[in-house]
């Protein structure tokens, strides 16, 4: 599959990828390297993994990271209760018998490397997990294997396509960065965003779509606490479509009410009163 193929197939999966991103995915697939995506919240980092798994027709295995995530939650855990029952039932003679795969609870990382077909492994918000977890991750990313002291080393049956996302909660280690391909995704420009809106909401009138994108792009330049992302833009478009509006300047009151889709804090809502919205709509038209 060439780079252009991948890009058009992502478009079929309703994901509009920039050239940089499509190239990153293409290289990640051909070189078998993990891909690290960074960028502000709401630019479609997680969506990339979903689109890729749809494109490749494989499973998407997702690991959501959080502070305090440990190996037991991410890689594997022994099913202690079952082991205990088995030991009691068998008369507690052979301890080794309970350390087999039957008693292993596979968590996302182990599951990802024991699939028959290469899945897409999404490690979401990796910077929210702590450094200790990064160390576990390195072994899996570099060697495609997991060491379980009681069982030995489990090698990957199929190399997963790994996508990591981060948005700057803390600085990632150089070791992790070095092993990954890197792409920074920013908010899309006007044309790209129009293309996204056209793919996701094809029945929207072109004039309204242009207005929506214009207003959202203008809002991103305002000083807001939470800048609206693509997901918010799509929500807003769906809301306006649902209300049956054809022009943003028609019914300013209702448009103002639908801003709940875009502005997620009280301060931001206060920052965009009716007059400001009217000005933004006027300029976007």
């Amino acid at each position, binding site marked *: 599959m*060439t*780079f252009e193929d991948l890009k058009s197939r992502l478009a079929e999966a309703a994901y509009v990828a920039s*050239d*940089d991103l499509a*190239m*990153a995915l*293409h*290289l990640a697939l*051909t*070189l078998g*390297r993990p891909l690290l995506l*960074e960028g502000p919240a709401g630019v479609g980092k997680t969506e990339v993994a979903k689109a890729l798994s749809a494109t490749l027709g494989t499973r998407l295995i997702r690991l959501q990271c959080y502070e*305090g995530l*440990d190996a*037991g*939650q991410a890689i594997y855990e022994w099913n*202690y*209760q079952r082991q*205990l029952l088995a030991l*009691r039932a068998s008369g507690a003679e052979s301890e080794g018998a309970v350390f087999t795969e039957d008693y292993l609870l596979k968590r996302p990382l182990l599951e990802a490397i024991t699939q028959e077909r290469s899945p897409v492994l999404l490690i979401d918000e990796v910077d929210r997990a702590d450094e200790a977890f990064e160390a576990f991750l390195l072994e899996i990313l570099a060697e495609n294997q997991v060491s379980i002291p009681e069982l030995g080393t489990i090698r990957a049956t199929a190399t997963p396509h790994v996508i990591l996302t981060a*948005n*700057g*909660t*803390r*600085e990632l280690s*150089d070791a992790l*960065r*070095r092993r990954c*391909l*890197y*792409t*920074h995704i920013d908010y899309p420009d006007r044309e790209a965003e129009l293309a996204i809106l056209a793919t996701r909401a094809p029945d929207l009138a072109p004039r309204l779509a242009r207005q929506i994108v214009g207003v959202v792009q203008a809002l991103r330049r305002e000083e807001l606490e939470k800048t609206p992302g693509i997901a918010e833009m799509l929500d807003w478009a769906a809301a306006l479509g649902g209300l049956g509006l054809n022009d943003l300047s028609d019914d300013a009151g209702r448009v103002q009410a639908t801003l709940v889709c875009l502005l997620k804090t009280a301060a931001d809502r206060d920052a965009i009163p009716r007059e400001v919205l009217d000005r933004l709509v006027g300029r976007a038209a």
Partner: protein
Amino acid sequence: MRATRFPARASGPAERVAGFVAHLRLNGWRLGPGDTAAAIQAMTAIDATDRDQARAALKVLLVPDRDRWDGFDALYDAYWLNAGRTRERTAPAAHVRAQATRPTLWRPHFGTEAEPEGDDVGEPDGTPDIGDGAAEGSDGRMIATRTENLSKRDLRELMDEDEIRAAEAAARRLARAIRERRIRRRRAARRGDGLDMRRILRASLATGGEPMRLYRRQRPDRPRKLTVLCDVSGSMALHARVFLAFTKGLVGAADATEAFLFHTRLMRVTPALRDHDTLRAAGRLSLMAEGFGGGTDIAANIARLTDGHAGRALGDRSLVLILSDGYCSAPPAALGAALERLSRRAGRVVWLTPAPPAAEALTARHMAAIAPRVDRVMRAATIADLAALEAEFARL
């Protein structure tokens, strides 16, 4: 930016790609031979004759973080499109520093005059001084200026060994006072490193003596994140030595510490300060502190922190320490607004000023805007003063 002349005699694509990786290395990128191999391999996976594809592929492969992501295109043009000539033509006003194939680190030893030779593309490196640098007005009064002082001041002058050690020791004690509210006793936790035997046994009674559920315990210690903003503008020049060493000590004492210097710009200096070699750290700092000793716009710099670095540096368990005298070219209202936003994002904000109360007439209006918006305003001009603050930090 350092430009490498395109190797006209390079024999094949592999050598040219290798030359590009070397060019990036020369510009301070840390790339190994493995990266070169991967870059050459990547060229086979794409249509390497398509310039856009080759650029995107190399970018994705070699860039490790955000800063370099933004800087890659310029370096790419400089190498593949011959020493950045195209860029120069499209933007003649942009100041391009070129030539000197010596690694960045050596530069302090050679001095800046040993730089360009046979350089027909960019301007010579001797950056013109804009403004006179010191934050002094024509009438002899100190005023905060917006002028960027581009002369590089060697920070090693400002740091001598003993003083550094004393300041660092004081900083370490302070950092400990801030962080050390760890609890040694384990508490019940859903996942922890120790078993809660007492609870397991008690619960096993319900299952006929079988310990079916394992309860765990853990030390509930989350270190406090410390962020230091050190003002290095002209008005702070007298205290820069002490405060820089102090900042270095704070950064060295705890992993979760971030340090920034600011004058007209804001610079993240954590990696440079973590350098174990003190002299080399000072060398790296002085490279970063272009414009060190110029004017200040504290409000804009605080805004830059909250906008750009907030995710990394702030949070509800963070303590922000601002080392500044409050000389600011922005109006007090702007400073107040910036601080307000900062204190919403950060757990605690402490303003540490070196100015004695008597010298405050000049900054009174700014200090009045600062005081109600931070958790504490403290005073310290010398290392002894800083060390004496330990008790106060412990209460924060």
